[in-house]
């Protein structure tokens, strides 16, 4: 069978490594650039990075551990 791009673990590793590399680069740029915003915290170092990360972790954990137990039913629940 034909091997595709992400069938090789090496390629997945490469993708992940360049992704992490880009994140570090972003943080470096963040430190160097003078930012402007309407709120004081927008100018704090890496505010958006921290917000994005925390927001998504909170989102997923709340959805998984709070919302899902409340609302999940079998697929034939309404039948």
């Amino acid at each position: 069978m034909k091997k595709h791009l992400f069938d090789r673990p090496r390629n997945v590793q490469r993708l992940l490594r360049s992704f992490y590399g880009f994140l570090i680069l972003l943080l470096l740029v963040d430190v160097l650039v003078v930012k402007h915003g309407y709120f004081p915290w927008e100018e704090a170092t890496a505010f958006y990075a921290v917000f994005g990360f925390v927001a998504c972790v909170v989102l997923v954990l709340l959805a998984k551990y709070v919302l899902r137990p409340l609302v999940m039913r079998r697929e034939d629940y309404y039948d």
Partner: protein
Amino acid sequence: MIERVPPAALFISGALVVPFVKGWYRQVLVVALPLLGFMNLLSMPVDTRLTIPFLDFEIVPLRVDRLSLLFGYIFHLITFIAVIYMYRMAETVEYVAGFIYAGAALGATFAGDLFTFFVFWELLTIGSVLLIWARKTREAQAAGFRYLMVHVFGGLVLLAGIVLYIGESGSLEFGRIGLGSVATYLIFLGIGINCAWPVLHSWLTDAYPAATIGGTIFLSAFTTKTAVYALARAFPGTEALVWIGVTMAAFPIFYAVIENDLRRVLAYSLINQVGFMVVGIGIGTELSINGAAAHAFNDVLFKALLFMSVGAVMHRTGTAKATQLGGLYKSMPWTALFCIVGAASISAFPLFSGFVSKSMVMEAAAQGHLTAVWLVLLFASAGVFHHAGIKIPFFAFFGHDAGHRVKEAPFSMLVAMGITALLCVFIGSFPEYLYRILPFPVEYEPYTLSHVLSQTELLFFSALAFTLLLLSGLYPAEIESLNVDSDWFYRKGARVFYRIADKGFNGLNALAERSLVNGLVPLLARLVTNLPVQSAVVFMSVLWRISGLRPDERLVEEKRIRKAFGTGTFSIGVFSLSLAFSVGLLFLFIR
């Protein structure tokens, strides 16, 4: 000859011709209609007005201004894209319903009076429900019926509001209404139902994933965007909208994270995006209204692109469930690419369309010092990337290989997706063309270093969260399941009501049958039959006693009388006497 053709007239008359045209002619017709309509629209100068006097009022079937033109452009554009996408796949009913639906959206958009607006508003429901029923599954049938009920109710609320409002204001004009009297609240709520406000939203997430593959493209574009247009027209700057919009932007992302059906994930993210528009209208500044309108324009494109790519997957594999998909980049690389462009656009990556419009609403919120609103919208921006930006492409095209070895999407689908993807990138890279057609002059510059950097940071660190959660196994596994939403109230609630009605009314029925039908009526019947013979026996036995008959002779006589009554053979004198006696008894009782 009429100089100006209302866009709705062109589409709806086209819809009525489509069934009678077959083969290639039909293909040419359905592609030509939106193109002709678009040229017609381009020829209309701003502030064109077509008025028809009607009784004491003025009907305005065509009112062209910058706001209605913008929605007119995008509605034509998406119809054009949808008919290309549906080429050779759609049935007659889908074309007819699609053009009626698009025509209704255009009619409501260009309506200058509330009467015309209402007529087209109702037509929206008819066109859209046909697109749901056209799927012809039992599920689609039931979902379509629920959809119809909700929208008929919404239409009635709107109608009540309009009638009261005309009574109050004495004018049919469809302009700024604003919240004040009961009438205005009813109009507000009627529009809100079509806008999928929280709790009133579940018709959308219930029905859109049930529609036909092509039909969903139409559905994702028209109903909610027409409602956004109506809010921007009638209720700009209404503070309640800010909070309604914030809720809309925030809550669906939680549902989207745990939803298994990818079309339903997109339906939730549709509500989330409309939330940004509603906030923009609620803030009510020129920047925020521009932002809402621009985002509506962009959302029609990127949401359609996402629905088209998932639709193509469904067309090939027969499912849109995340649990049954994965690894499709191998066999559907172009579809995967277009899906990623749609995902990048909805997530507002720099150079993609969402970036240049969503930020206008965020900026307007910041300018108005709406700190809480701004923070929730930022949370929603990260969240939308999470569920629409990553989840859709990842679970459909990457992730665990589900083993589907299918063909790439049909060429027509690829063309439609390709055009849409190009438009998303074009608008994102050269926003000035979109800004030029917004309702108000634009002084906003999206491409500042701060903005590009902060947005990139937000998105990439959201992606980091996804990656780490997935690698650590904390990410919620997709499960074949159903998540209860506010439609529970009319789906289960209706059943509870049914059960109460069943037990209550049927119980009453059974009780009535036992006591009246089986009890009282036979009793009366027996009474009426036996009364003459009994009274005759009683009367005669008195006579027999007096005349000195023995008990056994009395018994023989009694048998004879009963037999005589049973067979109707007795002397007239006895019969009339006993009859007179029983009539006399009855008379005594009844008096």
